[in-house]
């Protein structure tokens, strides 16, 4: 089981009550609202939810890369105990790419089309002063080899459009790792790839996590991916975490009706032929102000309380939290937090 939450050791990353908003003409969108979680060194942490639930904004907020006019309006982001929110822009630039790096959903869009792979990867190494001159190329080639990229010498001269999607994502990973960062934020790293390539990239990430002791924050909409790769998971719904804990716990005993719905909607080989279950209704637009629990309008267990009071995360098991009144003895007092 996970020891991180019990010991007093400082976690690698601690996000505390993060709040991100995007102003729009029709009102303020609360993209992330009061999100807290911790990632331990060398762990794979899954962030799962439907599109628009704030998982990407959370990932970008950690690097303070929320595109304007969006902004972070509250919370702390502690990396190795230092609050990133208090750092200057220049100091943040030394964190980005060096301590924390990021890979993106669509590698074709994340690579600059007009520069060769070599130019792009060496620019990062030069920027963070990890190598000079000929060592730059050697290091890149070494890394490519480790990541299973063929013909690494030619690869440096290639332009992104000359590579396949899987190779592009490997290159992105190489660019993220060339400075030996401690945390990799992987935002849907496999969603744009073919199914066969997806598992290769995931295997690669798991291998890197094990071999290099790299912590990975894996943002995905795919519960199956989380179950296969992560130690811990947070389930997002409309900018909030509705359930979090050890993957074994959460997936075996899902407590929040939303997580239960998500898991029930997964195809199960043991029930071939029976229809898939669905969560009724659809995700409301983030503009609609929902009093109380955001999931209440779609929840089959919703009571009057759910429509009025916002539930807090409470302990529902061993290393397992859920934000649902089904598990709070007294709605007013349910304020447990890990």
């Amino acid at each position, binding site marked *: 089981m996970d020891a991180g939450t019990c010991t007093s050791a400082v976690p690698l990353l601690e996000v505390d009550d993060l709040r991100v908003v*995007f102003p*729009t*003409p*029709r009102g303020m969108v609360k993209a992330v609202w009061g999100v807290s979680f911790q990632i331990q060194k060398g762990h794979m942490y899954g962030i799962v939810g439907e599109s628009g639930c704030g998982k990407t904004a959370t990932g970008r907020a950690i690097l303070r890369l929320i*595109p*304007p*006019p969006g902004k972070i309006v509250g919370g702390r982001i502690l990396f190795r105990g230092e609050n990133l929110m208090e750092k200057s822009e220049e100091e943040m630039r030394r964190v980005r790419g060096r301590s924390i790096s990021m890979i993106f959903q669509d590698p074709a869009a994340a690579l600059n089309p007009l520069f060769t792979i070599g130019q792009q990867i060496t620019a990062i190494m030069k920027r963070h002063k990890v190598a000079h001159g000929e060592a730059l190329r050697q290091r890149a080639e070494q890394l490519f080899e480790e990541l299973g990229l063929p013909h690494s010498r030619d690869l440096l001269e290639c332009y992104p459009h000359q590579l396949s999607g899987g190779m592009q994502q490997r290159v992105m990973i190489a660019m993220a790792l060339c400075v030996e960062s401690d945390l990799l934020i992987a935002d849907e790293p496999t969603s744009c790839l073919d199914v066969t390539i997806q598992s290769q990239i995931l295997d690669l990430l798991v291998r890197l996590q094990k071999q290099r002791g790299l912590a990975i924050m894996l943002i995905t909409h795919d519960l199956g991916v989380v179950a296969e790769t992560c130690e811990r998971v947070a389930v997002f719904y409309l900018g909030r975490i509705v359930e979090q804990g050890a993957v074994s716990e959460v997936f075996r005993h899902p407590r929040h009706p939303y997580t239960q719905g998500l898991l029930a909607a997964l195809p199960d080989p043991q029930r071939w032929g029976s229809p898939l279950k669905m969560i009724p209704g659809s995700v409301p637009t983030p503009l609609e102000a929902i009093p109380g629990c955001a999931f209440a309008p779609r929840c089959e267990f919703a009571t009057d309380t759910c429509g009025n009071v916002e539930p807090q995360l409470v302990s529902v098991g061993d290393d397992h939290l859920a934000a649902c009144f089904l598990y709070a003895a007294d709605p007013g007092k349910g304020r447990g937090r890990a």
Partner: protein
Amino acid sequence: MVSTRLGRRRFAGVLGWRPEPGSSLWYLQRDRIAMISLGVLILMVLLAIFAPWLTPYPDQGRGTPNVAEKLKPPSLAHPFGTDPLGRDVWARVLFGARTALIAGITIQVVSTIGGTVLGAIAGYFGGWLDEAIMRVTDIFLAFPPLLLAMTVASVLEPSLGNSILAITLVWWPWYARLARGQVISVRERDYVKAARGIGVNDATIIVRHILPNIMSPVLVQATLDLGAAILTVSALSFVGLGVPPPTADWGAMVNEGRIYIQNGRWWVATFPGLALFVTIMAFNLLGDGIQLATSPKARGVS
């Protein structure tokens, strides 16, 4: 901040018109610069329409000389001074507004409609028709626009109609190209395919389904170009290929006043030029505002 917000509300209230927040119109009416430009343009149109009643010398505005009063500097009687033929420059500027607006708007309307129809036909039918229309378009686009317009105008008799014709000739290809690109992107949409599938004829599809869907980028471009059309008309008149005298025309007036600048009679050329500048600038600012308001990307809200 408070006062402008109040002003805005009152403005919207007067027109009895309150666009939905987030819509293009909502963005446009919040753009103070675009709204001021719209005001200036409305004023210009009113000046042009009511020109004869806004000056004590409407005859001079139409061209009658008054040599006794020539080259008088600005005064109470002649706020913009008088020109080499003694005509009141204010009156001439007022009547010049008619020429500029009529020419600019005619060019823009004819070229937009003509170019769009040709481009739509090319894009919709494809094949040799597309090739033929687009290659002609390419050839016309290969000329620097003002230069071809000048050459064509010089072959024709100088008149307002002919300078409009000459500029229209170089103006339409831009819309043909724009419309064709738009049509090609719309053509493959499901509702067009569906209409074709159930046997709706081509003319109906173009008018009902295609044109309404490509109108907005074309219209935005047309408003953006209105200022340039007026600028081109004035350039043609400036080199002596526009409206023949004595009709008032801003470009021609600047040319008439050009040599008098050297001996200090700055008002003859300055005021018609200023009128040109203000009008063109207002059109361009409004066009820019419309473009900003209609493109979500430019507004910066994702």
